C-alpha cells in the first residue's frame, strides 16, 4: 500500500505546524541566550548584595563616622580601631607612584605608536607591549620585592625591604599597556583630514601630534587614564608581596604600608571565623574599594560619552 501524498489544505496545515514548532524552538533558544547574557547582571547584583549585607552588620558594630575619621587601623587587636583612612593612604600613595610612571610613559608610547611609528613597527611593538599586561601580578610582586627593591637600595641604602616605591613603580609598568592602548585607539580614531590640514599648514609631526591629535582625542585619553587609575587602586598582589602588610598612615612612598587590597589578603590568609567582626571588616574594606573603582569607571564612561568628538 502506498502512502497517499498529502496535498492541499492538509499539506498547508503540516507546513504551518512545522513552522510553529520552529518558532517555538527559536523562542526557547532566545530565552536561553538571554539568560546567559543576564549572568553579568546577576554577578553585579551578587557583588552589591554580598558587600552591602555584610557591611551593614559591620557598620552596626562600628559607627560609620569612626570608620571614616579614625587614624588607627587595628581590627585584629583586642582594642580594635577601624579607620579606613589608614588603608586609604596606602592605596592613594601606591596608586600615585604607579600613575606617575604609567600616565606619562603610556601617553608618550601612545603618541609614538599612533603618530610616529611606521606600520611595521607598530604591528611588532604593540603585541609585545600587550604581553606586559599578560604577566601574572604575583610575578610582578616577586620582581618588585627581589629585583627592584635591591636595585633601588643600591642607590638609596636606607630603603626598607618592604616599601611602596618599588611596588608602585612595577605596578606603573604593568599599567602602561592599559593606558597606551586605549589612548592610541582614541588617537587613531581622529580623522586623517585633521592631520592633513595640519601638515598642509607646514606643521611637523610633533606639532601635529601635540596641537591637533591629542586635543581632538582628549576624551578617549582621559578615559584611558581613568581606567589606569581604577586598575592601580584595585591591584592586589604586587602590593601584598612588595609593600608589606603593616597598616601605616603615611603618604611617603619610601615606607611600607598596607592598602585596602593587601589588608583583605592578609585577613583571608588567616583563619577568621565566619560572622566575626574581623571577617566583616574585609567586606567593609571591599565595599570602600568597590565604590571607589565604580566611581572612577562611571566617571570614565561619562567622560567618554560627554566629550566624545563627533566628526
Amino acid at each position, binding site marked *: 500500500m502506498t502512502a497517499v501524498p498529502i496535498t492541499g489544505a492538509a499539506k498547508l496545515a503540516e507546513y504551518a505546524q512545522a513552522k510553529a514548532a*520552529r518558532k517555538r*524552538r527559536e523562542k526557547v533558544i*532566545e530565552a536561553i541566550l538571554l539568560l*546567559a547574557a543576564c549572568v553579568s547582571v546577576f554577578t553585579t547584583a551578587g557583588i552589591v548584595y554580598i558587600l552591602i549585607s555584610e557591611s551593614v552588620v559591620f557598620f552596626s558594630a562600628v559607627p560609620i563616622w569612626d570608620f571614616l575619621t579614625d587614624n588607627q587601623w587595628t581590627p585584629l587587636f583586642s582594642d580594635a580601631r577601624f579607620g579606613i583612612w589608614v588603608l586609604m593612604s596606602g592605596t592613594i600613595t601606591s596608586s600615585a607612584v604607579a600613575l606617575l610612571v604609567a600616565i606619562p610613559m603610556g601617553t608618550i*608610547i601612545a603618541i609614538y605608536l599612533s603618530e610616529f611609528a611606521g606600520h611595521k613597527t607598530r604591528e611588532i611593538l604593540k*603585541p609585545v607591549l*600587550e604581553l606586559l599586561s599578560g604577566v601574572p601580578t604575583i610575578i610582578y610582586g616577586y620582581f618588585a620585592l627581589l629585583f627592584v627593591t635591591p636595585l633601588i637600595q643600591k642607590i638609596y641604602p636606607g630603603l626598607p625591604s618592604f616599601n611602596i616605591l618599588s611596588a608602585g613603580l612595577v605596578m606603573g609598568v604593568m599599567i602602561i599597556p592599559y593606558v597606551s592602548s586605549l589612548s592610541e585607539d582614541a588617537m587613531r580614531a581622529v580623522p586623517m583630514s585633521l592631520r592633513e590640514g595640519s601638515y598642509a599648514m607646514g606643521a611637523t609631526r*610633533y606639532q601635529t601630534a601635540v596641537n591637533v591629535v591629542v586635543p581632538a582625542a582628549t576624551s578617549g585619553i582621559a578615559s584611558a587614564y581613568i581606567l589606569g587609575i581604577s586598575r592601580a587602586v*584595585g591591584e592586589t598582589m604586587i602590593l601584598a608581596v612588595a609593600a608589606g602588610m603593616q597598616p601605616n598612615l603615611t603618604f611617603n612612598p619610601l615606607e611600607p604600608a598596607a592598602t585596602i587590597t593587601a589588608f583583605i*589578603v592578609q585577613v583571608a590568609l588567616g583563619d577568621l571565623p565566619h560572622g566575626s567582626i574581623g571577617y566583616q571588616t574585609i567586606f567593609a574594606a571591599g565595599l570602600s574599594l568597590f565604590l571607589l573603582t565604580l566611581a572612577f569607571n562611571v566617571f570614565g564612561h561619562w567622560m567618554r560619552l560627554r566629550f566624545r568628538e563627533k566628526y
Partner: protein
Amino acid sequence: MNRTETLRTMIRKHKRWDMLFGLLGLLAMSVAIFTLVALFVDMAVTGIPRLSTDFFTSFPSRRAAGAGILSSWVGSILVMMVTAFVAVPLGIAGAVYLEEYARKNWFTTIIEINITNLAGVPSIIYGLLALGLFIYTFGLGQSILTAGLTLALLILPIVITTTREALRSIPQHVREAAYACGASQYQVVSQHLLPYSLPGILTGVIIGLSRAIGETAPIITIGALTFIAFLPPVPFSGDPPAGMFDWLFSPFTVMPIQIFNWTSRPDPAFLQNAAAASFVLIFMTLGMNGLAIWLRYRLRKNIKW
C-alpha cells in the same frame, strides 16, 4: 641674515623636536620592554637551576630542596577546566544574544553597561563575592568548583567582549544570504556566524584563561590552602554518578598561591623555588598570550570578506 636663512633655522629647530620626541617614544618603549626582559631573565637565571623532573612531581615540603609544584600545577589545570567549562558557553551565548538577538532597549543597555563595569571591578572583589556567595550561602566549600566558578565570572567580560567583536566583524551580507535561503536565526548563528568567528572567539578564550591562571587575589580570598600534599581525585574516575564529581569538591592549591607562599618566606632556598615556579607560570601565560596574538594576526591576514 636674510629671510630664507631665518626660515631654514626655524624648520631645523622644529625638525629637531620631531626627532627628540621620536627618541623619547623609543626610550619609553624600551623601558617597558626592558622591564619585561629583566623580569623574564631574572626568573630564568634564578629559577632554571631548580627545574627538574622532581620539581614537577614532588609535593610542597618543609625542606626547600625537596619541594615541588605537583599539587599546584594539577590544581591549576583542574580549576582551568572548570573555568573554561563555565565561561566559554556562557560567554559565547551572552555575546550571541547581545550581538544578534537583543533589541535596542533599556534592558540591553543595562546588560551592556554591566559588562563594561564588571571588566573594571578589581579581581579581589570577585573573591569576596565567592566567599560570601559560593562558600557561605551555597556551601560549596573551599573547593576546585568554587575557584573555577569565581574565575569564570572574572573572565566572562573578556570572553563576551572578544566574541562580540568577532561577530561584529562578519559582514551583514553573510546573514542576509543565509536568511534568503530560509535559515532560521538559530541556524544562521550556529551554522554560519559561530564557525566564521571561531578564531576570534578562541583568541578571547585563550586571553581570558591566561588571565585566570595567573590570578591570585580571588583564590586567596576564598581561602585556598597553601600546603596541599595530596592530589584531588582523578576527574570522572569515581563511582558514577555521584562519585564522578568528587574532584570538584576537593581542596586544592594553584600555581600563583604556591608562588605567593614561597615568596613570603625569608629562606632564600624557598625564594629560588618561587622563581622556578614563576618561570613555569610566566612561560605558560606568555605562551598562551603569544598563541592568541598569533591567532589574531593569522586571522587578520587570511580573511578577506
